[in-house]
């Protein structure tokens, strides 16, 4: 009787701690099983030479040494950098369209949905549409170039152009995404501040830069986050549009990892894991920055 009473009082005493822990437990468990543990496993596998079937042989850092001399890896890494930098163009482009659409005229909802449309369709469809657009003979792009008197180009067949061609395709839906984020942000812009700005004689660029943009900071932050993530997830467009070619010039790290570890000619699990680890470390820089900046914001909010 006494012990039962003690038990109850222990639960009762610690209720404030136990309840959140219990609520967190399922999420934490799944996060451990499906995210944290696989990351650690990747680190481990990257130290082995393993075809996924037979015995794994420990090779230490050999996979990483090979990466250092692997030209395909170097190209993939540079392509990742191109994606990260150029994909950010979606943010100013999205802002521009959002500002343009942020007015009250008849049918503006329709225009907004039309601009948002590319984000709704699947990346696979975007990839297909753009690969038709780029087709060397029948493609619309070359038809247009022909009208203005330029020579036709084979964007996806030219190793110096292909990656930019795919990024341009990716920017189409990503710009729409950023536009929606900014449209929502613009709804929350305080009209009184704009009024105050007007009284002080601000208009045009000065109004945008000093009054509107600071209020859009949360939207910009989210747009930045989703664009960086989007750039690192560029796998599907590449797979659809060029399959990594011509001769491997459009691969990014995630695609290269897939080829080495999981594709028809791959099954070098150790090497694939080593690429995954490098990709993870690159992502970690951004994730770290985002976490840090969110933490700063919350700290500021608490004060």
């Amino acid at each position, binding site marked *: 009787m006494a012990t039962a009473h003690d038990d109850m009082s222990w639960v009762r005493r610690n209720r404030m701690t136990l309840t959140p822990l219990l609520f967190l437990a399922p999420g934490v468990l799944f996060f451990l099983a499906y995210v944290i543990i696989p990351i650690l496993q990747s680190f481990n596998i990257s130290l082995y030479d393993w075809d996924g079937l037979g015995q794994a042989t420990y090779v230490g850092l050999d996979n990483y040494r090979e990466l250092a001399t692997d030209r395909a890896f170097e190209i993939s890494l540079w392509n990742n950098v191109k994606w990260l930098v150029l994909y950010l163009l979606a943010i100013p482009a999205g802002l521009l369209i959002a500002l343009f659409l942020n007015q009250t005229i008849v049918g503006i909802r329709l225009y907004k949905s039309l601009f948002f449309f590319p984000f709704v369709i699947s990346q696979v469809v975007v990839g297909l549409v753009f690969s038709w657009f780029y087709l060397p003979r029948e493609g619309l792009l070359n038809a247009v170039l022909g009208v203005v008197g330029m020579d036709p180009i084979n964007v996806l067949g030219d190793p110096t152009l292909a990656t930019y061609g795919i990024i341009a395709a990716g920017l189409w839906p990503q710009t729409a995404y950023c536009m929606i984020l900014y449209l929502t942000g613009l709804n929350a812009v305080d009209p009184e501040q704009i009024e105050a700005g007007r009284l002080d004689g601000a208009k045009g660029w000065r109004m945008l830069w000093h009054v509107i943009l600071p209020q859009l900071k949360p939207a910009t932050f989210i747009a930045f986050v989703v664009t960086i993530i989007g750039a690192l997830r560029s796998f599907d467009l590449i797979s659809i549009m060029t399959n990594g070619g011509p*001769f491997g010039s459009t691969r990014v790290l995630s695609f290269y990892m897939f080829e080495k570890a999981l594709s028809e000619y791959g099954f070098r699990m150790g090497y694939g894991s080593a690429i995954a680890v490098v990709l993870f470390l690159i992502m970690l820089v951004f994730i770290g920055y985002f976490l840090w900046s969110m933490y700063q914001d919350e700290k500021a909010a608490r004060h």
Partner: protein
Amino acid sequence: MLNTLKATVGTLALSAGLTTMALADDLSGTLRIISDMSNPAPRAVMEGLAAGFDEQHPGLTVELEVVDREAWKSQIRNALTANPPDVVNWYAANRMGPYVRAGLFEDISDMYASGDLPGLDSVKGAMTMDGKQWGVPYTYYQWGIYYREDIFKELGLSEPTTFEEEMANCQKIIDSGRKCYTIGSKFLWTAGGWFDYLNMRTNGFDFHMQLARGEVEWTDDRVRETFANWRKLIDMGAFIDDHQTYSWQEALPFMLKGEAAAYLMGNFVVPHLREAGLGDDQIDFYQFPKIADVAMGEDAPTDTFHIAANAQNKAAARAFLQYVTSPDVQSKINAADALGQLPVNANASVGDDEFLQQGFEMLSNNATGGIAQFFDRDFPAEMAALAMEGLQEFMVFPDNLDDILNRLESARGRIYK
């Protein structure tokens, strides 16, 4: 005793009439087959095979699962390790390597030795690895140059037998405002076919296999000679432009519209040409012409059945392999209205089709050098992937050859340990 998966099949009942084999009728339990014959015609064939075998053995239930052919290339690993089926589809020669080495395919050498598989002597080699046999073939097909007969007639050309004639023909085709060959190299393997033939014709089958086994340097002068021959065609503008952007199907319209005269391809291209409206007076086939004075080697990829090492019903699985390779079944499933390919059993009859007959004739009488499987089946997977990328690059930028060969040579040093 037929499960619902294939209950719909009635078309190709390879039925009970088959009594040529001494089949043990005490087979019982379940025979689980996973097949990659997912395209419409092969699927019907596979379903017919399962139904026919099921019917022969009242005590046995045949369970068939057909998976997508491309997806199977990576799924087979999981399928063979976790809860393996009894029988699976795969490919001959080097492609068996990973599964043989990992002990996932059953050794069936005793079936070949004891005469349980009569008529398969000529294809035994493709199923042999480490001196043992690991499965049975069920179909194969020839490669060669499929061309527009009407264009050849219009220009007064005949089927070439030497490389000089080939190039002379090609020059006339180019002069008529067409390209000699269509090719779509986006997925790389089509370039592998060109290399196979040019290398086998320039240096012979044995040299080609040495290269595949990693015994010859990629920077060897003989390899360079192969590329020099290839370059002759590239420099004269024999191939369509922008081929690196097209898949092999996307390259078909060039031939259909008569903008290119020929296509180096496997026999599976024929139904595509016919469906697109080319008549048999418009398409024909010839063997890749002679270059150097070496015995002709040919590409003839072979598709196979294997028993999983951890199969539950090995007795039934073995009986199924016998059934699939028996002459009657072989004649039926490879007929022109079924798979439309070549039977593996010497006692089977070849389908009534001009391309099948020509291909069979070529492989039986004029492939004295040897039969190769295909670039990406003869070379180890990783080497094949890297090399085919280099071949594509060479076709677009022939000047990069030195760089490409050095890259492949350093990969060779790493891949073949």
